[in-house]
């Protein structure tokens, strides 16, 4: 089993390396196709008063007039040796710039995920056990509501109510505990909706199973039934959704960071896209690809722990997801 685990992980890591490399090259090509470049964008600001000849001489001096393939090769070769280079926009080392913003985004993403999971579980619990007259049906509408309200709207409302009206946090200190909490809420709410939807559907299915009826008939309490029996079998698809949501969290953090004035990876990407800062963009895209691949790998490795029927390498070399699908009807029987 351990050997299977390791070889599976090794194979996935090799795939990850290919994905990251492709992401790197793809970013380079896309940004190169766009008109302009970071250096001339700054130089062409009319305030500078540079003539076209001066601009061309500066571009040539920095080697930005070389053919795209030559530039790609030189950047790729230094990337492979671990040198991410200097930002074209700020002239600072890319590694320093990413190291500055990464902690903020990781804090935000993990807090948002915590908020999302908590909310999702609370909603799901409510849909199973809240009496109908206390709004069980209403609770079932929450996920669709959460999904349809954009996170920036939630963010602005939170800032105005809790920041300006109640004075819980100052907008100029976005890294304070309260500000981080509300940013996590804004970012976590839409994610919680997706998790809750899947969780509710599975819980409904599990609650209809005979074992649930048996447990109830034996006098098991609601909470015990929920946490001891219903949750575990419902979690498998939730793990998939959480893994996918992690990507969403990284993407959405761009907007949430802008709204809350946080300085994270999202705002770094925003600035770099606006100025076509290729070295930074390539580094961030590669990083995002790495995180995405790793999180999904982690999810794959977690499946067998949740459900012993899932094996990573079956005789038919089934993919884990397929294994789940084929295993499910057996469970219902």
């Amino acid at each position, binding site marked *: 089993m351990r050997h299977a685990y390791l070889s599976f992980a090794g194979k996935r890591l090799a795939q990850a390396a290919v994905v990251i490399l492709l992401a790197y090259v793809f970013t380079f090509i896309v940004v190169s196709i*766009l*008109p*302009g470049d*970071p*250096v*001339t*964008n*700054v*130089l*062409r*600001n*009319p*305030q*500078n*008063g*540079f*003539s076209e*000849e*001066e601009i061309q*001489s*500066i571009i040539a*001096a*920095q080697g930005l007039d070389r053919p795209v393939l030559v530039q790609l090769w030189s950047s790729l070769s230094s990337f492979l040796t671990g040198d991410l280079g*200097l930002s074209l*926009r*700020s*002239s*600072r*080392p890319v590694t320093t*710039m990413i190291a*500055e*913003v990464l902690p903020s985004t990781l804090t935000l993403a993990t807090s948002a995920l915590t908020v999302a999971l908590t909310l999702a579980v609370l909603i799901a619990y409510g849909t199973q056990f809240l009496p109908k007259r206390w709004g069980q049906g209403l609770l079932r509408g929450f996920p669709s509501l959460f999904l349809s309200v954009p996170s920036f709207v939630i963010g602005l409302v939170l*800032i*105005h109510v809790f920041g*300006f009206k109640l*004075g819980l946090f*100052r*907008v*100029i200190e976005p890294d304070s505990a309260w500000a981080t909490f509300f940013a996590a809420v804004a970012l976590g709410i839409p994610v919680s909706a997706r998790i809750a939807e899947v969780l509710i559907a599975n819980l409904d299915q599990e609650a209809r199973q005979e074992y649930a009826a048996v447990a109830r008939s034996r006098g098991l309490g609601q909470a015990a039934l929920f946490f001891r029996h219903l949750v575990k079998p419902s979690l498998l698809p939730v793990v998939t959704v959480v893994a996918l949501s992690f990507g969403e969290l990284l993407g959405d953090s761009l907007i949430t960071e*802008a*709204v809350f*004035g946080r*300085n994270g990876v999202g*705002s*770094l990407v925003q*600035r770099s896209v*606006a*100025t*076509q800062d290729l070295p930074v963009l390539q580094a961030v895209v590669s990083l995002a690809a790495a995180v995405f691949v790793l999180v999904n790998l982690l999810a794959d490795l977690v499946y067998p722990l949740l459900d012993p029927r899932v094996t990573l390498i079956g005789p038919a070399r089934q993919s884990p997801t397929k294994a789940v699908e084929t295993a499910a009807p057996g469970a219902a029987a």
Partner: protein
Amino acid sequence: MQRTPRRRGPLLLPRKAKRPAAVLRRRILVIVPVISRSAGTDRPVSSHREQANFQMLTSSSLFSGTRRRLLAALFATSLSAFAGLPAADLAHAETRQGGDIVFLIDSLGDTWIPNNSAISSFQGHIWGHVTDKLVYVDAEGKVSPWIAERWEQNPTATEFTLHLKSGVTFSDGTPVDAAAVVANLDIWYAGRKAEGINPIGLFPKTYDHAEALDPVTVKVTFKKPTLGFIPTLGYHGSILISPKTLVQPASTQADLGKTAGSGPFVVASWKEGDYVKLVKRKDYNWGPPAVGQTGPANLDSITYKLVSEQSLRVAAVQSGQADVAYNPSPQELKSLKEEGFTVATPRYLGFVDGLALNTKVAPYDDIKVRQALQAGINRQEIIDTVYTPDWKLATSFIQSNVPGATDHSALLAYDPAKAEKLLDEAGWVKGADGVRVKDGKPLSLTLHANPYLATAKAIDELLAQQLGKLGWKVDIRAYDVVTFGEKVRYGSPTVPAYEVSRSFIDAGTVAGILTNANNGENWFALDERDTKLNTLRDQIAGAGSVEARAPLLDELQAYLLSQAYFVPRTQMVQRIYVQSPSLKGETYNGLALASYYTASKVD
């Protein structure tokens, strides 16, 4: 006693006074007379009654901290009630020492390499506090001494001698001496292009070399007459940086925390795309005399914090979480003023907001069509609908506060009847749909909204309405900064009108920019076709004195506007500030950048 409504200038106080109790007693003696710089005239505003109040006010400083402030406020209020003075006026009587302010800004720009960032509308704010310049240029374009105490030039304006203040140091301890100034002049002129350190774009291209005659004297030589040199030393780009910083590679210069200037503030901490915190330099003693203060700053610290959401910046100032919000929407200004916030719309020295017409693109090769455009724009309506009364009508193609700008409002009067007549004469006939046609082609105008001006598109839409009534068919294109830079150029066959936004410090450089001489930008695509314009340009460039140049500049302005090469829209305001009423005494220089060196907080 007549009272000034609001005193922008700081009160002259002994700057070296440390902090309260014992020293304050001395201050009471020296405070007579307190001087206000309001309305341009120095006039004492202190009265015996005010001094008496002040004495009471300062006596409360025996207590400390908040309680002291509270008591002071109480004293002030009750006393002024007795004396029949408005309480707010008392607060002015003392330039309060200490205090921290937060300035919310929409961007902190790209790089911090001094040469590449000094002209930025964003980083320029920080550089203005961290660095000094050789000369000071105020909002009216008046040049006065700063680090250069005085200067001389030869009759042909090709050699300048600068005499520097002694005892000035950069924050890394290096003296600001002749050698340091030469190092700065050299890098402003040439940059280090291969490394990504750009030259300063508007530094005179005629620069030859500079030499240190002795530690406080620099001689600067030019290849051709360069009357604009001294004003240029007060321009954004000309910030004095320690030679120890200048020899560093670009990647080190990009680290703001490692750069040393000689300004009244130093960088305490910073984070890219987040904030810059400046703290006051206690031994600073060489401020520009023109702002009425030469000692250390009054405030302890200034934090520039990036908040990209426009509404959040303003809301944070309204709720008291910050002191200044940069670039609010012009539409909000009226209500903010009514709420008691200070609104500033300073104008920089430069071109007005307007259109440079391309004389190679039909029909703008026809002077009658150009003149019809000049007469067909209702400029007052732009101010009434897009802006507020804080904006001013253009009186020339350069801002009216530029020295040498003359009033040519008559040439810019709105006269639709004249415009229609000119178009009729030029053979443009109105069709059934109201669009004028000549030889089967409609009278069209494509406007590319200036991406550096937030209100550009709104103005273009208004122009489309105004010109539409006269028979124009106006297309508006709005590009982002990147695409604009690529696609929209002066003289391009697809760009009949280029929307100009550009500051400059000396009107003498204007004619050179407009034409194609000396790497000029050839704004109207005239090449060498207009001999009168070229003659004026050469005469202005060769002028040895401001007096000899003034009539030439006047003639240039009248000529450009009557030929309708340049069609002004309004005077340009690119920087708008909303400020808490508790912050007073800031100054705005010729670049419309706010300086809080002289500012202080009042309760």
